[in-house]
């Protein structure tokens, strides 16, 4: 069997250049959509994950009568619980001050207080919100704790929200990947259909099906590859630009959670290569089929 060089394939792509250009640009267009939407989704995910982490803490109120040593021992026990990432000790005075800062406008209310009603507190940072319930349960077994404060409802809601965002995002990504696949495949079908006469002639002069297929598969792969690279490149540029815009100018809140361009580009390049070259090759393989039966 003849050896199909890249050179030969490029020659054929050039001779059918109108078709090649149209195919590549359809590949680029559909992967561009996928990539852009995916980077928005990844950022929304990252944003909602970030928000979640602001709430994934448990406050442990310490009994009034504990000695300094007992408090330290308690701290160590807490630290040993599975899923606890780190703990912070907050004295009752700090707590009151913080409240005054948080609710600035009502601070005059707090001035009227006769005593500091706050307890000393350990604030637990979690490895992940999913450990919260188990940690709360284990805390119950420890001595010296007055009360465990955990904003279960709020945190649950936020977990709901993030998983909702993630699910919608996943569904959208899958949907778009499906559409991109479909459009790329369709485009390849059209280009191969335009060459059906050529294919049938090859068959009539005695070429085997595989001998005919290989160059088409190679061409499809290269079309897909070029399309994937171009679209990733474009996304890289757009994303770098947006990233700079957001981080340097406004919406600093969001920018703090914005994924950097390398992270995004890597994910998208992988996906684009898989879809672009994969469908380029597979689409050619499948589309050529019906024209080989002559």
């Amino acid at each position, binding site marked *: 069997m*003849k050896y199909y060089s890249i050179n030969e394939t490029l020659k054929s792509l050039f001779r059918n250049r109108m078709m090649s250009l149209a195919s590549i640009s359809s590949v680029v267009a559909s992967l561009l959509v996928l990539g852009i939407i995916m980077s928005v989704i990844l950022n929304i995910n990252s944003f909602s994950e970030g928000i979640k982490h602001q709430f994934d803490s448990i406050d442990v109120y310490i009994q009034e009568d504990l000695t300094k040593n007992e408090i330290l021992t308690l701290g160590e026990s807490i630290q040993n619980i599975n899923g606890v990432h780190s703990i912070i000790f907050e004295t009752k005075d700090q707590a009151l001050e913080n409240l005054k800062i948080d609710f600035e406008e009502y601070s005059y209310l707090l001035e009227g207080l006769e005593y500091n009603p706050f307890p000393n507190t350990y604030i637990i940072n979690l490895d992940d919100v999913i450990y919260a319930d188990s940690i709360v349960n284990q805390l119950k077994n420890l001595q010296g704790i007055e009360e465990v404060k955990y904003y279960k409802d709020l945190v649950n809601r936020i977990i709901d929200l993030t998983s909702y965002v993630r699910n919608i995002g996943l569904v959208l990504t899958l949907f778009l990947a499906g559409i991109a696949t479909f459009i790329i495949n369709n485009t390849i079908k059209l280009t191969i259909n335009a060459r059906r006469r050529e294919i049938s002639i*090859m068959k*009539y*002069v005695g070429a085997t099906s595989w*001998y005919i297929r290989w160059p088409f598969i190679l061409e499809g792969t290269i079309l897909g590859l070029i399309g994937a690279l171009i679209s990733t490149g474009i996304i890289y540029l757009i994303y770098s630009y947006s990233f700079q815009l957001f981080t340097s100018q406004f919406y600093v809140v969001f920018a703090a959670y914005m994924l950097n361009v390398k992270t995004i580009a890597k994910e998208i390049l992988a996906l684009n290569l898989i879809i672009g070259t994969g469908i380029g090759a597979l689409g050619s393989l499948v589309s050529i089929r019906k024209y080989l039966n002559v």
Partner: protein
Amino acid sequence: MYERLENMIKFDNVTKNYSGGIVALDNINIHIQKGEFVFIVGQSGAGKSTFVKMLLKEEPPTKGEIFIEDTKLSDLHSRRVPQLRRKMGVVFQDFRLLSKKTVYENVAYSMEIIGAKPKEVRKRVPLILSMVGLSNRAKLYPDQLSGGEQQRVSIARAMINNPTLLVADEPTGNLDPETSWEIMRLLKQFNRNGTTIVMATHDQNIVDAMEMRVIELVNGKVVRDQAKGVY
């Protein structure tokens, strides 16, 4: 000269119907031995090209059986069809050149598919192109050629692999008498070297001058099968 008679082509009660009640071939029985030179003549629409299509397994017969070198075509698995077609060289009435390949590449393609060495290809293709008078057209694409030039590319392609069976459907329809005779001389030479030749044609002068076997079709029926016949 003593020649062993061997079957090259055998049509056994072959009928081909197309939709719309068209009978293209009507109960054909033909034996063609190895080494024969056979003209198929007949009016336009008589079934000559259909006969060729049957040989290539391009279309299956509606009834009957076709044998090539004792291979029953209806038993031939579709994966073996390329082998069948490589054994033959075919000049198609509508040329069937690859429009995105040059003259040279069109001819070379037929060598490449049978696994010929690049060196072999580079030697033989220019040779055959010069035989059909197209040396100076090698780099052009089919749509840059005249009708007769396209036809000669098709002839060169059919001959390139020294096939044991050469089937030519109207190979001189677009050629002037002089070029036609050159092509016929080539065919005759091939035939002398052992290639079986089946040629559908309308060219009265050629048929009459060659004095070969003539099979005449009328409305898909064989009405005449004559050794050393005329048109």
